[in-house]
């Protein structure tokens, strides 16, 4: 599926220009608060109308202002999961889920699968006011999925969720991504949350949307520098599989996907999952140290050797991408950079504690 946008939207004090083509199954939209992320989704969904331009999904024109085409919201078949969930307060969870389920008798199997996938079985009779924020998010996602939508839009699905609930929602979203073949666009002002779902990111900045790019490319091309000023912390996100668990020593080994030579050691208490389970790993760039050699007499368990492929200065620190079989993003101070003589092509070791790794299933 290809989503193509070329439009301009403006109000008295806001402007958004979008010219991009989305081809990935799951794409993140990232920008600071107020940059227009939700407006972008609203325009795709049909809640707002561009001043001029086109929105085309798979050769179907949803909006073309030049010929006065504007397919109404209810005919676009776009499942929209709103930030505030918007569950219907007079319907229980089951009725919310089946609200737009066109032919219940034929689609009982799909309904059951969705309920199972989102683990909503115990709450079907509950009213929206009596369930938690995480459960409400799952109901909203299920409701959108069951509406026979061709695309799923998720607006800040993690906002207002505490860390355990956020982790839970991320798990369910990853499950959906794994099970359903439906393009998903997720908006968040937290890049790290987005990265746990996708590495393909559209940036919205200065009233413009940019073409989707991989996270690593965005760092390489210094596209995140401005946003970095807003407290962005570079994270490393990897997918992998648990290959061993040493309960006595409280550690587990994770084989990184598509990198047969890279295994990471994580703290077992952080996982609670059996061997062969798929996990996502999150590691803050600031938690990665750089050394010129492997250090043996140290407690740090993860030490990966590699070559610096990208290095540039941003304010008072260096942003560094090291190719260790996996790309490791790190930040070091200018002083450390000088002492170690860091430069592109130099061989270094990336060190990070197993305790610094956060895992998501």
């Amino acid at each position, binding site marked *: 599926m290809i989503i193509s946008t070329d439009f301009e939207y403006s109000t008295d004090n806001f402007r958004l220009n979008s010219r991009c083509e989305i081809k990935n199954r799951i794409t993140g939209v990232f920008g600071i608060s107020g940059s227009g992320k939700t407006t972008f989704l609203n325009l795709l*969904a*049909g*809640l707002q109308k561009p001043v001029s331009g086109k929105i085309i999904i798979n050769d179907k024109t949803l909006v073309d202002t030049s010929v006065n085409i504007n397919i*109404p*919201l*209810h*005919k676009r*078949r*776009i*499942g*929209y999961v*709103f930030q*505030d969930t*918007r569950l*219907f*307060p*007079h319907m229980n969870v089951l009725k919310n889920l089946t*609200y*737009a389920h*066109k032919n219940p008798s034929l689609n009982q199997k799909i309904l059951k699968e969705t309920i199972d996938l989102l683990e909503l079985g115990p709450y079907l009779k509950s*009213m929206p*006011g*009596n369930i938690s924020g995480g459960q409400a998010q799952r109901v909203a996602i299920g*409701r*959108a999925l069951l*509406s*026979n*939508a061709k695309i799923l839009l998720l607006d800040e699905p993690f906002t207002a969720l505490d860390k355990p609930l956020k982790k839970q929602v991320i798990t369910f979203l990853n499950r959906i991504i794994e099970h359903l073949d439906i393009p998903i666009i997720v908006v968040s002002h937290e890049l790290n949350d987005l990265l746990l779902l996708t590495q393909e990111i559209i940036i919205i900045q200065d009233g413009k949307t940019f073409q989707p790019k991989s996270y690593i490319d965005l760092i390489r091309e210094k596209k995140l520098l401005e946003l970095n000023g807003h407290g962005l912390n570079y994270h490393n996100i990897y997918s992998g599989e648990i290959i061993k668990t040493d309960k006595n020593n409280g550690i587990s080994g994770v084989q990184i996907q598509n990198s047969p030579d890279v295994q990471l050691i994580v703290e077992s208490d952080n996982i609670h999952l059996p061997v062969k389970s798929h996990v996502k790993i999150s590691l803050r760039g600031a938690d990665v140290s750089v050394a010129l050699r492997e250090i043996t007499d140290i407690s740090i368990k993860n030490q990966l050797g590699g070559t610096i492929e990208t290095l540039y200065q941003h304010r008072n620190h260096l942003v560094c991408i090291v190719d260790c079989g996996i790309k490791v993003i790190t930040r070091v101070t200018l002083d450390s950079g000088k002492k170690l003589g860091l430069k592109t092509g130099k061989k270094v070791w990336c060190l990070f504690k197993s305790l610094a790794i956060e895992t998501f299933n």
Partner: protein
Amino acid sequence: MTFEYCSILSFLQISEAEWSVILLSVKVAVISTIISVPFAITFGWFMGRYRFRGKSVFEGIIHLPLVMPPVATGYLLLIVLGKQGFIGKLIFNWFGVQIAFTQTAAVIAAIVVSFPLITRSVRTSFEMVDIKLEAASRSLGISPLKTFFRISFPLAFSGILSGTILGFARCLGEFGATITFAGNISGKTSTIPMAVYSNMQIPGKESATIRLVIVSVIISLIAMIIAEYLNRKVIRKRS
């Protein structure tokens, strides 16, 4: 049928003439309410959801009977729909139908005075329905009309119900516009308020007056209790 009711409320010793007044009042109030409510829902929803030029003026005109002296409202109705009125004359000439001083006039007068009351309540309740929920419904592929019946209407239901009961009570108690436009014709257009008024003028009719007042209190109370019960049922269902 009338006598069966009489036996139920025999302790009040309501006469047959009084029963006919009560039944006429209830009939006029029920018919007026049934006619008013669908229009009030449409109008209230429209006014609660849309902005347009001249909206305040339009609303002001609709709400006029709420603040105008009811007798003046009745007089205006007479000017418009009376046998010599500019619309009433046409109706009489074309169809041979006279509106003024008939039960139809009593119904029209009740509709005119109760409509703004129902509309106000309906409009407020629609305004309280989160517009985002309607957008959420449409984003799920549900048409605006279905969204209205499945989201907006059920969520505004308690307000619509209150408005309906208020309107019904207003119809039941309507006096000024009715007496001016429909008259106080015994057995034809004389409703409870008019019968009470007439009885008050005649010495020795005090007990009949009290009986009618008690009946109107009972009817109003029953209506309010039913409304409260349904309202609570709606609230309980949501929690």
